[in-house]
């Protein structure tokens, strides 16, 4: 399986580490961190996964390459890689 890294070009699967679903940390103000809503939001952030059968955005780390965190968009039904982007380009 080849992944086309935006920095390194097509590279083998074994160069990468997969973290799983690309999630965004809950936007909670520091003074609200202990609120029940924030606790629930963080529990869901750490543990819950959409786990779709189909299109899935994932965080991958190119450890044996450019050592960049990537957002890989894949189809979990057939392993097709649809897009690979540097995670910094996805963040505002």
């Amino acid at each position, binding site marked *: 399986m080849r992944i086309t890294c935006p920095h390194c070009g097509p590279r083998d*699967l074994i160069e990468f580490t997969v*973290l*799983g679903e690309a999630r965004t940390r809950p936007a909670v103000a520091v003074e609200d961190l202990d609120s029940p809503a924030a606790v629930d939001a963080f529990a869901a952030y*750490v543990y819950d996964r959409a*786990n*779709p*059968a189909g299109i899935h955005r994932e965080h991958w780390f190119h450890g044996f390459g450019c050592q960049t965190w990537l957002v890989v968009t894949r189809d979990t039904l057939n392993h097709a890689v649809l897009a690979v982007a540097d995670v910094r380009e996805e963040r505002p």
Partner: protein
Amino acid sequence: MTFSAFALLKNAISGQTGWRPHWRKAEPKPHYDVIVIGGGGHGLATAYYLAKHYGVSNVAVLEKGWIGSGNAGRNTTIIRSNYLLSGNIPFYELSMKLWEGLEQDFNFNAMVSQRGVLNLYHSDAQRDAYVRRGNAMRLHGVDAELLSRDEVRRMAPYLDFDNARFPIQGGLLQRRGGTARHDAVVWGYARGADARGVDIIENCEVLGLRIEGGQVAGVETTRGVIGAKKVGMAVAGNASRVAAMAGLTLPIESYVLQAFVTEGIKPLVDGVITFGAGHFYISQSDKGGLVFGGDLDPFPSYAQRGSLATFTDVAECGMAMMPMLGRLKILRSWGGIMDMSMDGSPIIDRTPVDGLFLNAGWCYGGFKATPASGLTFAHLLATGDLHPAAMAYRLDRFASGTVIDEKGVGATPNLH
């Protein structure tokens, strides 16, 4: 129809014409007391124990394909109860005890073979960890023996004891562990459930859940709407998809796990042997093929087939432990979709929807758990209460921080 020496003899002299199908091809009824989604080992065991132990026989098991076509037929058939944590040991030991009496219980030859499960250790630190695990097992009444290098050598002289990187120092042995024939487990439970009135409905995929006022009312399937006030989900790698029909998000990610079998050879590997310096386990089937597996493929998948990179890794682990493997040809490989939970342990619990129950998160340890999973899930479906042996497998343990993380790697499901 029961199996006995007399029945075998009678059919031997009558041309084997006396055998009948072991379960009916049931048509769905409009309503059941309990619907179990998933006709794998866990779903069928649940129906069997519901009817046998709890007197609930107005039950349907819905299976989208044919029974046993998912992970029940894709595993490496290993049974064991060599766990460390107190949330796990009583459950898996209950399962081991049920395995030991299973064939008499459901009158079917499941080929339960307690040839032993041997975990190799390769360093002082790993020996200490195995001593700790063995002691935890013995404190819970489970058998465990620490073997020296020489004792392991007597059992399996073909291992690479003097491997330069991973010399074998010894092993932790559970003699009561072993293997069982996975298909026969499915068939035995199906036959026993069917005989007690359970409808096993194949080619019936669940498309939606009917929920009225926070209470489950039935399921929508490819064969019409079927009503029930209690619905149990036992769908392994598809747990997230079925739970999503009720608006639930689970602490589960699905990954593919591959397994492999070689050409048949004369008896060589007695029992199950696992590599301690990587992830690799091997046993020999009764047909003679060496059955082995290792790590998951690294990315989430529903594809039921794996990648070459993972196979290469598994083969390298195998060669490091047992170099003679290199002389054998691989006949087949296959993949199953594992419901990897966030702490590596399963979930058997209620859900926020009344009447909807969850049995999921088996990671790649589902086969050995089949009897206890069925019994404890049946207990939950029948009584509404958690079974004493499965108290720890709660859905809310993640939010409350009471996770059961045998491997200690946290919320990284592909590492469990």
